[in-house]
């Protein structure tokens, strides 16, 4: 099986996108953390001011997965901003179903996104990877990615809802 297409996601793709999000979360050993719904994905990605953009990889019907799916990979990204250099493309999720790996889909998706980044005058593409995820780290480093956590000491932080509420009421 060699042919597939990459295209912009459409509203009809949200259930496939959510399915793949959950598969990726399972791979990252955090499946029960996914609480997002199809409705939210639809509203947040296809409304007037989308919070994200999405590209999907699709195979012809004759190559559908064991469960009958033709959307077999996706990448979700959005634009962020670095006050030192300007616009950046942030790669949030990037996944190809296990049975479709090794055909160059991942590489093509990454190329398409980097092309989008260059076209929209982004200075860089940023993303995070779990430190135990050696296959992915190698995949990215082979293509020229640098690890800013080791090279520059950046640590990623979060402040959850309950603390945001506390902070916003303490003004």
């Amino acid at each position, binding site marked *: 099986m060699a042919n597939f297409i*990459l295209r912009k996601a459409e509203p009809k793709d949200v259930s496939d996108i959510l399915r793949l*999000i959950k598969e*990726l*979360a399972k791979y990252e050993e*955090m499946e029960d953390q*996914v*609480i*997002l719904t199809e409705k*939210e994905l639809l509203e947040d990605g296809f409304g007037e001011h989308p919070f994200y953009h999405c590209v999907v990889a699709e195979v012809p019907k004759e190559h559908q997965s064991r469960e009958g799916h033709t959307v077999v990979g996706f990448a*979700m990204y*959005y634009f*962020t*901003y*670095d*006050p*030192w*250099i*300007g*616009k950046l493309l*942030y790669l*949030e*999720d990037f996944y190809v179903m296990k049975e479709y790996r090794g055909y160059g889909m991942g590489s*093509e998706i*990454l*190329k398409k996104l*980097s*092309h989008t*980044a*260059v076209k929209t005058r982004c*200075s*860089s*593409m940023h*993303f*995070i*990877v779990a430190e135990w995820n050696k296959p992915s*780290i190698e995949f990215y480093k082979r*293509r*020229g*990615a*640098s*690890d*800013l*956590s*080791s090279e*520059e*000491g*950046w*640590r*990623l*932080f*979060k*402040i959850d*809802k309950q*603390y*945001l*509420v*506390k*902070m*916003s009421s*303490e003004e």
Partner: protein
Amino acid sequence: MNYTVRDSTPGDCKDIMRLIVDLAEYEKMPNEVKLSHKELEADGFSSNPFFKCLVAEVPEEFKSKEGHTIVGYGFYFFTYCTWKGRVVYLEDLYVMPEFRGKGIGKALMSRIAQIGRAQGCVRMQFTVLDWNKPSLDFYSSQGAVNLTATEGWQLLRFEGEALEKLAQNAN
């Protein structure tokens, strides 16, 4: 000494740029700032802004040694988590040294938390340099969790030549 926290306007861009450079100096990377205040203005105040910025302002009688009344800023934008939904990303938070200890940093952060909650954000995310103890302590006291330490996330990027190379063969 009183201060106000307000939304920035295009006219604030020169001051915001000044503070961006100050913060870059503190982070020991002043030569990394390539952006001009004109680009900041174009990217932040068009019909499709790539970021939002709050500024902290003091009255004339409390201006800084060099005569500035804009003494702090909070730079943010919205991102997306495929597991939970909308996220508010705090890109930069900075208060001039002579104006610290008066609650300005906390006030900037609280207002951004409030704005995030109003937009339905489930959390606030940001990065901190591992040697920056004052900031690490401040964020910890506000309920922040270090995801690099607890979950092993590493921040990576593709930039410059590596990004161009990756984009070259896109279809």
